[in-house]
């Protein structure tokens, strides 16, 4: 096996000898991985909205600021179909909003009063019949101090179903785009390495072993793919920051809620890893054909 110092030195020499091709390949890799990365970013933010609590809220009662919240809660607790009643005061609601949407919460920090009214969240028993939430909400609307009572049952169910559909579609599309990205990366690397085909032939004639010839190119292509993937992460972060800045200036009722978080670190690291894998695949395809004694004529 060739020495590591030789392999690294040769890989660096290959990169230095064709800087334009290297830069073009890295850019192509970055763009190819940017699209599935963007899909992952949108999916990540959609997922934040999914309610996956162990006790999902079925009904939300919004109360007047002067209402007796405890009396209303006690009244609800007498219903045998109800498992849990959660009182959410104004301050607690504000804190919850800030935790869920840190970028938007900062905009409300200067307010003297908490902008959210007190509310009560109702969790039904698992065996509660269908439309129980709607019945409780309808009855609660008539109680004193209750400004509004909404059933979240149907919405939660439909939202979760829609989210699952979008995420599955996103995963499928993401997988297809990632595969396309990998093939694009492999082709870009292969084109770059084809520039060195004559050189590879000369090295063979000089008695270099196949591993000594190929290892530097494998390393070069892998690093090229890794850097391209890293650049894709950078482009995604720039996109995220730009969108956040744009939405904070002119908030959109839906997008402002959706667009609040960047990719997690493990997900972000997938892009450079995918780029590196694609680069390696490309170099294997380009140089993978073993030297045969019938196919080595140099032009």
């Amino acid at each position, binding site marked *: 096996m060739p020495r590591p110092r030789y392999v690294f030195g040769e890989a660096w020499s290959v990169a230095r000898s064709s800087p334009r091709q290297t830069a073009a390949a890295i850019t192509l890799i970055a763009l190819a991985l940017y699209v599935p990365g963007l899909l992952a970013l949108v999916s990540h933010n959609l997922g934040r909205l999914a309610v996956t609590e162990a006790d999902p809220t079925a009904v939300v009662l919004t109360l007047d600021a002067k209402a007796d919240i405890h009396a209303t809660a006690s009244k609800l607790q007498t219903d045998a179909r109800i498992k849990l009643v959660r009182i959410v005061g104004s301050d607690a609601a504000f804190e919850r909003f800030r935790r869920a949407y840190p970028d938007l919460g900062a905009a409300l920090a200067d307010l003297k009063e908490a902008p959210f009214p007190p509310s009560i969240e109702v969790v039904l028993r698992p065996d509660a019949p269908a439309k129980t939430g709607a019945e409780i909400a309808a009855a609660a609307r008539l109680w004193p101090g209750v400004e509004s009572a909404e059933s979240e049952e149907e919405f939660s169910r439909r939202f979760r179903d829609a989210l699952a559909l979008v995420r599955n579609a996103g995963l499928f599309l993401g997988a297809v785009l990632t595969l396309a990205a990998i093939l694009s990366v492999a082709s870009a690397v292969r084109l770059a390495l084809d520039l060195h085909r004559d050189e590879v032939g000369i090295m063979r004639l*000089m008695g270099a*072993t196949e591993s000594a010839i190929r290892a530097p190119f494998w390393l070069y292509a892998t690093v090229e793919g890794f850097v391209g993937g890293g650049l894709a992460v950078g482009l995604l972060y720039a996109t995220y920051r730009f969108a956040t800045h744009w939405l904070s200036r002119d908030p959109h009722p839906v997008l402002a809620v959706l667009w609040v978080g960047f990719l997690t670190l493990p997900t972000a690291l997938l892009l450079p890893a995918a780029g590196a894998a694609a680069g390696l695949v490309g170099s294997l395809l380009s140089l993978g054909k073993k030297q045969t004694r019938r196919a080595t*004529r140099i032009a």
Partner: protein
Amino acid sequence: MIQLFGVSKKYGTFRDALIDVSFRIEPGEFVFLTGPSGAGKSTLLRLLFLEEPPTAGQIIVNGRNIGVLPQGQIPYLRRTMGVVFQDFKLIGRKTVFENIAFVQNVLGLSRVEQKRRAYHVLKRVGLHHLMNAYPNELSGGEQQRVAIARAIVNEPTVLLADEPTGNLDPVLAEEIMRLFVEINIRGTTVVVATHDLEMIRRTGKRTLTLERGHLHDPDRVRESAPIVREAPFLPAH
């Protein structure tokens, strides 16, 4: 020693590049391989440095039947041979020193040793002052001398040259041929393929003449092919 016994090389169905060629070259001998274009000179050299296998016959180099050498052993055998081409075949992105050193690099030699050997062979060819130059900064004659230095840096037992002066003017060609003679004097077997009959005449070395794949060598009698079983080829390093 190089021995060929009934070696033939056929491309496709109809083209016979070499037909039943047999000869022997003694260690330390200087031999010209000549003939018109298409005679089979380059084909013969390609068989000798294992770029292609023969269709028939045996090729024995230093006691080994190289025609049946395992694929993995080829690089190690090539390190015992030096090869020089008409178009130099230097790697453009490497300096003169790097072109000579890279084979030593894969052998695992230290940087100090690589520099010492490279300087030594470059001095022999008169180019030690151009170690950091790139091939495109050199003249044709200088490039060929670098190629020769690369070919001899591992002190090969055999040096093969395929039309080494084909791209050079007569003065430079004379210089290059003088280098080959000097290398031969030090004990390396030299085989030069050329159609420069004037050069051959002036050098006065033994000549093997090919014509349409046949060898005209009345001084050598064809010997019966020995049975040579391939022993494991041990790398030099």
